[in-house]
């Protein structure tokens, strides 16, 4: 049988840099192909060539056995290829229907026929079991719903091959489950799916065939039944990953003590609601929760970026609430922020300047308010070496670093303060497996050193791997705290969704 899609020996050169080196993939009708690889492995480049956004340096694309050439995305769409981008492209003031039919609106007497459009969308939504409300404003839809709109848009345009670029990155665990079901159903209906991701458990759940890329080359092309996560990870990274072994519980005294913290008491729903939490020395406390349940505000309150209404935050003997950020940092707090571009760096600042934040106040690097750059540069070079941060020079703009490398720079900077306490918020978001490993090791080493760490992550796997204790946040409250050994993904998922897991937790959750 002929393949629905074949890409043969695709090569893309940017100057001397080989982004894709003779990459070939095949895709049959009704098949799910996962393309996995670290950041910068060439997944996106390959898809951009397929979608007509880049012209290959050499290579051939065949659709149903016929060689094709796309000069742009419109060409690709016409040929039945659709792409759901990582960042959605919706008009938030338009209805779901309008967003889906845009560009191919059903018309009556030359006018847009809203009624027919809504019916078509409804029919499509039922046919593929993708639930949306056709009349809702796109801006009012949840992230998961918005993604469904994007998928329906692609289906409406008549795509047979659907590219999903990192579709689960923004979803909650429950939404991920739903999406995976949708993907399977679409495949059963005869659609061909290309799934771009670096989350291996999801790959193992839905895909039939898996192509692994590393440094622009195919390092493996395997069927799901013949492989496992360990093998895929090895193919992706090029070496075996170390298992994070079980560790001894360290008995440490309390370090960060949060008592009865309240934020937004005047709002209809408080942001933080009588929250109490303790992080001991030599301990990683993970905070699990669907984003938007007060985690960001908690971090900001601890680090001095947000005012609190009442309660107290102590670090050792020092009271932190009501103090300035500089005071709190000086008292022994370092902070890997959840959004590296918003909080963690300035895109226009150089690598050196981004690294300098906080250090310029230290005596060692500050001589009567002149910054001693020479000593500091040595320090930054050390970070670059230790974390293998890829940058052309210290004068490179931070915004030019890849996301993963910038994250490593920020992690190195915050670890470099050697504080007693660290907030690590989404420390590995958007970072490839190799870098993730470095960062995890560094965090565990800090814990073993007797420091306290508060870990906030939307990745349950990360929480489960790193934490000694796991606190689940829901609607501004800590609904339960589980011990490392008692926590499973299932139990956490239930608690995160606001469910009562057992009798003991009913005391802390009020029925809404």
């Amino acid at each position, binding site marked *: 049988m002929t393949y629905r899609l074949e890409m043969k020996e695709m090569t893309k050169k940017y100057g001397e840099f080989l982004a894709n080196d003779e990459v070939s993939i095949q895709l049959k009708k009704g098949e799910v192909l996962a393309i996995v690889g670290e950041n910068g492995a060439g997944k996106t480049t390959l898809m951009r060539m397929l979608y007509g956004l880049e012209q290959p340096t050499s290579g051939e694309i065949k659709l149903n056995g016929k060689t094709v050439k796309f000069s742009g995305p419109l060409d690709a769409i016409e040929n039945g290829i659709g792409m759901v981008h990582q960042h959605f492209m919706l008009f938030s003031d338009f209805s779901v229907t309008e967003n889906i039919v845009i560009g191919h609106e059903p018309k009556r007497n030359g006018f847009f026929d809203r009624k027919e459009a809504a019916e078509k969308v409804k029919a499509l939504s039922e046919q593929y079991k993708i639930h949306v409300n056709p009349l809702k404003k796109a801006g009012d839809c949840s992230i998961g719903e918005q993604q469904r709109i994007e998928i329906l848009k692609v289906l409406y345009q008549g795509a047979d091959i659907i590219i999903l670029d990192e579709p689960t990155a923004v979803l909650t665990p429950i939404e991920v489950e739903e999406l995976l079901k949708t993907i399977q159903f679409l495949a059963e209906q005869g659609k061909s799916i290309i799934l771009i991701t670096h989350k291996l458990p999801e790959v193992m759940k839905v895909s039939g065939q898996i192509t692994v890329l590393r440094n622009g080359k195919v390092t493996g092309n395997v069927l799901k039944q013949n492989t496992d996560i360990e093998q895929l990870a090895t193919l992706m990274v090029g070496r075996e990953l170390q298992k994070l072994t079980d560790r001894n519980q360290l008995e440490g005294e309390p370090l960060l003590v949060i008592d009865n913290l309240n934020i937004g008491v005047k709002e209809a729903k408080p942001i933080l609601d009588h929250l109490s939490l303790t992080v001991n020395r030599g301990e990683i406390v993970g905070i699990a929760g669907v984003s938007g349940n007060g985690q960001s505000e908690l971090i900001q309150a601890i680090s001095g970026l947000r005012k609190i209404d009442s309660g107290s935050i102590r670090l050792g003997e020092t009271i932190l609430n009501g103090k300035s950020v500089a005071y709190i940092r000086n008292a022994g707090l370092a902070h890997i922020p959840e959004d590296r571009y918003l909080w963690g760096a300035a*895109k226009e600042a150089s690598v050196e300047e*981004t690294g300098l934040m906080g250090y310029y106040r230290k005596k060692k690097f500050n001589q009567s*308010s002149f910054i001693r750059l020479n000593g500091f540069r040595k320090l930054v070079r050390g970070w670059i070496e230790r974390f293998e941060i890829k940058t052309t020079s210290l004068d490179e703009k931070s915004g030019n670093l890849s996301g993963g490398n910038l994250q490593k720079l920020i992690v190195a900077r915050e670890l470099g303060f050697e504080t007693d306490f660290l907030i690590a918020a989404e420390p590995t978001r958007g970072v490839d497996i190799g870098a993730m490993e470095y960062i995890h090791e560094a965090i565990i080493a800090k814990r073993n050193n007797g420091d306290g760490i508060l870990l906030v992550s939307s990745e349950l796997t990360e929480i489960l791997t790193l934490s000694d204790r796991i606190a689940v946040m829901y609607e501004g409250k800590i609904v339960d705290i589980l011990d490392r050994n008692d926590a499973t993904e299932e139990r956490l998922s239930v608690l995160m969704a606001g469910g009562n897991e057992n009798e003991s937790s009913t005391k802390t959750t009020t029925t809404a």
Partner: protein
Amino acid sequence: MNLQRKLQQLLRSLVQPLTAVLIGLLTGAVAISIVGASVLETYKVMWDGAFGNFYFVTATLARATPIILIGLGLAIAFRAGVFNMGAEGQMVLGAVSAALAALYVPGSGIIKMLSALVAGFLAGGLWSLLAGWMETRFKVQLLISTLLLNYVAVLFAGYLVSSPFQDKSGSAALAQTHMIDQAAWLPKLFQGMSVHMGFVIAIVLAIILYIILRFTSAGYEVRMLGYNPFFAEYGGINKIKVLLFSMFFSGGIAGLAGTVEVLGSQYRYVEGSLTVPGYAWTGLMAALLANSNPLGTAVAAIMLAALQTGAMGMERNTEVPLEIASVIQGVLILFVTAKITMNWWKVKKKAGDIHGAA
């Protein structure tokens, strides 16, 4: 790090303003030929008018003095990420305060001069600080408040010199203060030439600001605040404090621009003498042309001043009208703003590429 790359970087940063200047001159050439004059000859006359002999050079530098100071003041604010549009009002208030201090503070000439400098700086600084404070306290947009405060300042200064402090001794009774005691004047740099000590002050200030912005922790805080206020706050920089300080110095230096004009060339505050030549807006252009680099701002200010003095020479000696200089300046402004839009457009385009053409 190494010299070669530094040099390359410098050259690259110069490409855009130089292109803008070149296109400005080309457009000017078109305008000149429409008038029917010879392009090369006209430009030659213009050049002579700006740099033709020592006298013209000093005239150009004298004109550049307030422009440099205004540009430096604005550069600080821009670096801190705030758009101070109130340089004109800050300059005028500085000028009138300096004139009054020099007239009414008792003491020797040098004391009068120093108190005038301090008063000019403080008046401009506090006026600018007012806008900064309104922004931090009440979230009144700086761009708008500084712009509107210009009217208040200029009209208030006009009132001061047309009523309570007017010099009524002359026959024409212009809206101006009495003349300052000669002992309090800023000395001329050369006998009989118009350039005065204020120019030296401006250049020294440019160097000091360059060093502060580049090598000190205060400069680092200002720059980071301008790059990304969230990052600054997260890193422990006191946003409000840095913003207020930046606004104070920004306005203070603008006030100083007015002060040195009063002490060095007018010897009194005359209504309209600072606003009519458009020093504030030329200074704004200088800061934008140089991307808020203090040294670059000084160079750009001298260049823009040369364009103006050159055009005056051109008008004296040819049939080509003075407005040609405005044409060239206009095109310059266009291309300086085009730089901003180009950057914006590039970012947009990049984002669009990633998301495809859906």
